[in-house]
């Protein structure tokens, strides 16, 4: 019989009632979607990227729809960690689901301070470390694209908090496995992947880039094959749990990620085409499991790696 516990999954120390999270930056601080459905139905919420100081974000336009995808250049608009703790965290704690805070720094120091500050707060399940931020001290290359800088950020956060550290990998790299290994060696408890692919669009009438920031991050179904490939490769190389994301719309997409090696999944862009998509994915997974009463979601993790 499929019980609720068939869907339970564990990302390291963190137990999730089901494997379906919502992805950072797409769900705000859960204020808005709360008006549509009970957030407690979700496995967890990855809140919007938080920085040390408040950030205004990038100039508009910030969004451009592409074939089966979405380009965004939000630029981490957020109220800063202090206002987050004051104004958002108390509400988030009471939502009845796991809260994962996504942090972004523009120097190693900033990552460390963010982790320290959040370490003092209760009610957080984990920190998700966004290493796709430009390193202002190193000429703007993002931390996440080199194993050394990715490891350095991880170590810094690891030293600054006792919370589980989930590191979010950038897909804009030659060798995702090399980065994953470096980050795990540096103390990551789990990996989340993928962040957005770097892309752009041009308006042929205006003869200018569409986005105010020229470049944006590509998400949505268009990137799913790339995300799945990376999960697959990383699963074969590391033993920490993986949280998979990138184009998940329905439960079959989620199954693909889980069978490729994800312990949990997150939905971002999928919310925009149907705000209820996370709930439908949960239902769909339940239905799939119901076909085989012996099986739980945990049995499916990485299932596609072994020959039939």
């Amino acid at each position, binding site marked *: 019989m499929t019980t609720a516990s068939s869907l339970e999954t564990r990302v390291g120390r963190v137990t999730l009632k089901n494997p379906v999270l919502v992805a950072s930056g797409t769900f705000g601080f859960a204020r808005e979607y709360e008006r549509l459905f009970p957030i407690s139905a979700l496995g967890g919420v990855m809140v919007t990227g938080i920085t040390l100081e408040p950030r205004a974000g990038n100039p508009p336009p910030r969004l451009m729809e592409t074939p089966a995808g*979405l380009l965004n250049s939000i630029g981490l608009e957020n109220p800063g960690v202090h206002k987050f703790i004051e104004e958002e965290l108390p509400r988030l704690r009471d939502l009845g689901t796991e809260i994962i805070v996504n942090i972004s720094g523009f120097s190693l120091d900033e990552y460390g301070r963010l982790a320290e500050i959040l370490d003092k707060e209760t009610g957080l399940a984990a920190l998700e470390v966004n290493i796709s931020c430009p390193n202002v001290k190193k000429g703007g290359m993002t931390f996440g694209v080199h194993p050394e800088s990715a490891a350095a950020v991880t170590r810094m956060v690891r030293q600054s908090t006792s919370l589980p550290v989930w590191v979010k990998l950038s897909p804009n790299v030659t060798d995702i496995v090399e980065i994953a290994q470096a980050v795990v060696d540096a103390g990551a408890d789990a990996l989340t992947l993928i962040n957005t692919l770097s892309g752009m669009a041009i308006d042929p009438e205006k003869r200018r880039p569409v986005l105010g920031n020229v470049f944006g991050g590509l998400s949505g179904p268009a990137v799913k094959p790339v995300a799945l490939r990376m999960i697959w490769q990383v699963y074969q190389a590391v033993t920490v749990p993986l949280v998979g994301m990138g184009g998940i719309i329905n439960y079959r997409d989620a199954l693909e990620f889980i069978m490729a090696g994800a312990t949990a999944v997150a939905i971002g862009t999928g919310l925009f085409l149907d705000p209820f998509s996370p709930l439908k994915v949960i239902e769909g997974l339940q239905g799939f499991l119901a076909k085989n009463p012996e099986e739980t979601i945990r049995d499916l993790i990485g299932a596609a790696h072994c020959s039939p």
Partner: protein
Amino acid sequence: MQVETAGVISLSPLGEATGLYHLVLTAPQIAKESGPGQFVMVRCADEQSLDPLLLRPLNIFRYHPAAGRIEIIFRVVGRGTDWLARRRPGDSLSLLGPLGRGFSSLEKYHRILLFAGGTGMPALFGLVEQEGKVGSSTEHNQEFVLLYGARTKEELVFLDLWQAAGVKVLTATDDGSAGFHGTVTGAAEAMRISPGEFDFYCACGPRPMLQAVQELMAKYGIPGELCLEEAMACGIGACMGCVCETVHGYRRVCTDGPVFPAGEVKFS
């Protein structure tokens, strides 16, 4: 705000080659909650198709809480609206709404100037119809003048409805085929507005028009509100994607707007 499955009651082209359509839907929940200047997000693709991916924002032209209906006017500009234009009575549509901060109450104003440009017109009609809401224009002894601009005569739609609502309608067309030959701001200047003739204005249309309207009205010292458009993803304030620049910094068009007090939005 909710997700509602709406039924298509009718879908009619407006004029010959305007690309404009009039859509009437059953959507009782959304009809009940709507206010002037609010919008809905509509999924404009087959259930299983992922292209186009995102919902399309469309203003609520009229809402009828008692009948459980809403009306929309849209122009076919791309693949989403093209898909929408091929729906038929009986089809269902997935809607999210009503969304956004619409126009403020006009209760305290008496002579109100409305500026409509193209598909910005539908956003304004709720101001004079306000069905099911506290007061209607006549009750409040209000006078409305609508300055309605479009590319050509054929694209000036539902003039009769506006007139029936007691609104004085002045038109402007880019090609001079009806009304003033030029923009709505040109038409407004030609009116030679006297001091105190209007105490408020509301405007909805393309950005260049809104900018020109805001500048002109500032010259006359008339306060007002502007209804903006911006590309949207979530439509409910979560993604920070639809911001426009204002004097208070970036503001979300979908939830802080789409209606902003004149003077707040920074154009250019």
